[in-house]
Each structure stands twice: as C-alpha cells, then as structure tokens.
C-alpha cells in the first residue's frame, strides 16, 4: 500500500489517456456482462427444468398437437408417477410487444407434476372454482401491476377473439431466483371455447418415479406411438428447453466468440497503451532503479498500474450492467430472466484483472530489464 501513491500519481499523469483506457475496460466488461445476462436468459429454461420430468411433443414439430387420448396411454407405462399436459394459447395482452407465455393447463394434474410451483391453497381453490380463472406468475403480475380479482382480456392469435380471464391467484417458483412470468388458465375453458383443435393438447409433461430410469421411459413412450398418425418425440425437460433456446443459434458459442474478439482487441490496445506509457517514463524508471528499486519492484509498479486500470474499468462496466438489469427485461418478455448473477460479476472482474496483468506484464518486463546507464543516456 505504501507504493499506491506512486501508482495513482502515474495514472494522473495523462488523465485523458487513463480515462480512455479505463473506458475501454468498462466497455468490454459491460459487453461481457450483457452477453452473460443474455446467455443466462436464453438458457434459463434449463435451470427451470426438473430432473424427473420428461416432455412429450409431436415428432413433426412442437406446434403440431397430440391427441388428448394419449394421456391415459402414457400413464399406463411403468415408472411414470403422473402425467399432465398443456396447450400454447399465444394470446396478446393489449399490444403484441407485451409478450408473455400464456398456457392452458390441466388443473387436475398440473400441480402434482410441477410441485416446485408455489401458490396458496386458497388461491388455487378459487382458480378451480372459476372456469375463466387464471393464475399468473409473480414477475408477470409485477410487470403489469395485476392483482387478484383483475379481469384480463387476451386477444387470441391461434383461436381468434377476445378471451376474458379472472386472476384468481399469483404463483412463484420454490427457487425464487427462477422466473415466474407465465400466465396459466384452465384447459377445460379453452376446450369449451375454441372452435377447432378440440380433443388435442400441445404437449405432455411426464413425471417419472426414478429419474435414472428416464432413458427407458423415453423409449417406451415413443415406441408406444410409433407408426401412428401422431408419433411422439420425448426428451428430458432440460434437453428440450436447451434445444428450444438454441433454435435461434448456439447462443453460448456466439457469446464466447464475440467476447473473445473484444478481449483480444482490448488486450492489444491496452498493451500498446501501457507500452507507450512505460516508454515515456524510461528516465524515471531508471531513477527509481538508481535509488534502489529492484527489477521486480519496477515490474510490480507497472503491472499494478495496469491492474488498477483494468480493475476500475472492469468494476465500472459490471456496475453499469447491474444497473441496466435492475431496470428489468428491456425486450418486453423475450428475456424473462434478466439479471447479472454474482458469479458472473466475479468471473468478469477476474477476466478484467487477467487482461490488465497480461497488458502490463510485457511493458513491465521491459522496464525490469532496463539498464540504468542506457536509460540515462537516452534522456
């Protein structure tokens, strides 16, 4: 710490350059943070997935329905604890940009399969008692300021017309870090009102007794409906949700590629800046060595300077991302989980320090190798 004033004084020497260098780190770490947030958001479904749940969809496509009659046939397969089903409704609330998933569920079985969804029993019973009832996730309720008793109209996009719902309950996930932004309503209401598609469901969710037996059950389900008009494709919920996210591309690969390019560029720019900064101070470094500063001491000063720049820049960048995420999902529901995890802040900060170390190390080694007499001859 007794050398801190020297490091700070050197940073103040060319304030504009220091600010720009710190800014470079801040921008790079902001980008890193933002990409991490997007990655987290795109893959949040996988976090939501239960290890004991399988998803059964139409083999042709997720948007193709499956017969309701499959419910009992799936249930008969050994090792299955419970089966439920859902239908994607695709309703719009006021404006298409107000996207959120609205799904018809089977009230008789849903809670037994999704035991990690938490809702007060009283609210659930109210939901069961109202054919037009709906339960909404806490995040969603907060987003639109909804409360129990509100009447919510949704404009149908698959089944046209305005569908009215009464909010009867607000649910949240057992793990509060997971999103709760879905809108659930009753399948029997949909079935009664929709003009076509009756007797079908969107997908089945199967809860297995023993997750380790999942592979056998997957084969059993798909085998049972092989060569039928509605062949199935079964996967674990995690595989399904990850695959769903990757439909728009390998997000993680894109993020790593962009991040790598940014950090390599940052390294080159900062390394060059540090090299110039050290070259400008050749005489002063020679003076420090003359006074008795060791080679390692001079290296330490240069590297510390670089670390301080990268650390400050990194923290600013990450703080800006954090502030940005506090404002919530800016896409109107596409990125439901929109937050910067603490571990990402830690990793980002370490990356910034690593960049700072590498950027300062080579100029630092040059400073370390500097011969005093040669340096004095140059000034």
């Amino acid at each position, binding site marked *: 710490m*007794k*050398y801190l*004033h*020297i490091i700070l*004084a*050197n940073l*103040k*020497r060319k304030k504009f350059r220091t600010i720009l260098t710190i800014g470079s780190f801040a921008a790079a770490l902001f980008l890193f943070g933002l990409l991490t947030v997007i990655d987290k958001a795109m893959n949040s479904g996988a976090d939501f997935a239960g290890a004991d749940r399988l998803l059964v969809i139409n083999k042709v496509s997720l948007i193709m329905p499956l017969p309701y009659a499959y419910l009992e046939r799936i249930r008969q397969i050994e090792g299955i604890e419970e089966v439920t089903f859902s239908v994607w409704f695709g309703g719009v609330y006021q404006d298409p940009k107000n996207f959120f998933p609205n799904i018809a569920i089977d009230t008789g079985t849903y809670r037994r399969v999704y035991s990690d969804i938490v809702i007060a029993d009283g609210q659930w019973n109210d939901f069961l008692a109202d054919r037009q009832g709906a339960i909404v996730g806490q995040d969603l309720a907060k987003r639109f300021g909804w409360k129990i008793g509100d009447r919510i109209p949704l404009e149908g996009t698959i089944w046209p017309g305005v569908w009215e719902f009464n909010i009867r309950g607000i649910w949240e996930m057992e793990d509060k870090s997971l999103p709760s932004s879905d809108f659930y309503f009753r399948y029997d209401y949909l079935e009664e009102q929709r003009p076509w598609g009756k007797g079908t469901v969107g997908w089945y969710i199967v809860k297995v007794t023993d997750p380790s037996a999942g592979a056998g059950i997957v084969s059993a389900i798909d085998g049972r409906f092989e060569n039928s008009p509605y062949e199935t494709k079964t996967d674990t919920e995690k595989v399904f949700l990850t695959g769903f996210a990757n439909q728009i591309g390998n997000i993680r690969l894109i993020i790593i590629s962009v991040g790598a390019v940014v950090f390599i560029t940052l390294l080159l720019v900062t390394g060059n800046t540090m090299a110039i900064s050290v070259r400008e101070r050749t*005489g*002063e470094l020679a*003076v*420090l*060595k*003359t*006074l*008795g*500063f*060791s*080679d*390692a*001491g001079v290296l330490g000063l240069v590297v510390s300077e670089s670390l301080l720049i990268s650390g400050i820049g990194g923290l600013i960048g990450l703080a800006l991302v954090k502030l940005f995420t506090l404002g919530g999902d800016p896409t109107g529901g596409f990125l439901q989980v929109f937050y910067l995890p603490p571990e990402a802040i830690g990793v980002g900060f370490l990356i910034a320090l690593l960049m700072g170390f590498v950027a300062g190390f080579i100029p630092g080694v040059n400073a370390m190798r500097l011969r*005093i*007499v040669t340096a*004095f001859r140059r*000034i």
Partner: protein
Amino acid sequence: MVRLDCRGEDCIVKVRDLDKKYYRGNEVIDVLRGTNLDVSPGEFIAFMGPSGSGKTTLLNLVGGLDEPTAGTIFIGGEELNKLSRRELARFRARYIGFIFQLYNLIPVLTAYQNVQLPLLLTSLSKKERIKHVETALAIVGLTGRMKHFPSQLSGGEAQRVAIARAIVTDPVLLLCDEPTGDLDRETGDGILELLGRLSKEFGKTVLMVTHDARAAAVADSILHLDKGILVEAQEPGVF
C-alpha cells in the same frame, strides 16, 4: 596508478585496475583504463576532465549503475562485482546517494514524495518516514516546499530536493554528477556550500564530477581524468 593513500581497511571506496570498454560495431572504445583509486571516509573529491574522459562512467561504476569490463570496486569492503542485480539495488538504496545534473525528480510526485522514495524500500513506519523526510528537507532548507511539485520549484530548489532525497537514508557515499551544471552561479554556489556542509558536518563521502573549476575548488582534492586514465591529483584552491 594514482591516489592509493587510503589506510588499509579505512577505505570507503577502493577501485583496482578498473577498465571499461564500450563497443560500437567493430570499434572498441576504452572509456576507463587501469583506474585505481582509494577514498577515505568523509572525503570530498572532485573529478575533472574533458568530455569523454570517463568521469561519469567512473561515477556510474562506483555507484553500481554499470558493470566494469575488468577490475574491482569495493565500497565499504563490499565488492560490487560479486553482488547480484537485486543485491546491488539494495546496496545502492542503503549506502549510496545520487545527485544528478538535471535533478531527476519524478514530476508527478511532490517534493515530500520524491524525498520519501528511497525510504519506501526500508522497513520504516510511516511515522518514521515522515520524520526522516522532514529532517532531510530541513537540512537542505526546504521545509516550506514539501507539497510542491518539481515544476513548481526553481532549479536550485529542485536540486536541493534531489540532495534531500540522496541523504534521506543517511548513506555513507554521495555521488554527484555535475550537480551545478544546470544552475546559475549564485544558486550553484549554494548547492556547493550544501555539499561541503554534508561532507564536513555530516561526514559524508562525496565524489563529484564537474567541468567547473570553481565547483571543484570546494572539494578536498581534485582528480583529473584524461582518455580514461586518472592522470594527476591536484590540491584545490590552485585555480
């Protein structure tokens, strides 16, 4: 061989058969040739000679800033050639103070911080460091300029700060390379008077390179170098 009059173990500086060659392409430049020198503690010696005669090179070698091509240098009994770079740095910090023609202060540090630099390498506490710096600045008469940056100081003041920095660790040897070369006559006289006082009052051994015969006159003795050879000794006051 000149000036081997130091009495055995009492020598603070002992130089034997010192050679320094520089290489420029195929050309070999003999900067110092067979230099021998003894310096007693508390002595004030001025080195004079034309440019390129090897004065500064000798000072750099004695200060451990450069390595000789041949020969040995002992400072207080320690043979510099045998010290590693790290040990040499530590040795300089502890036993040698440097004063340069262009002061060589760090421009972004205040006078106080510049003087404090060598003390950062010691195990002194902050409180002790403050005390040492204040004492050094008091000796050079700059107590009131502690918080000034080098750009806010006159040439004479900057050189006094440099002297304070050189003496703050209480070194046994002060090496001065043209300490008045960048100063006007009056200011230069003040610096020379200060160096003389450091030698007489504080017992510092001072080796000073200068072109200025008036400056050299302050020393106890004057040694002349010519083409890398110590050629004659001269008593001061002859000019």
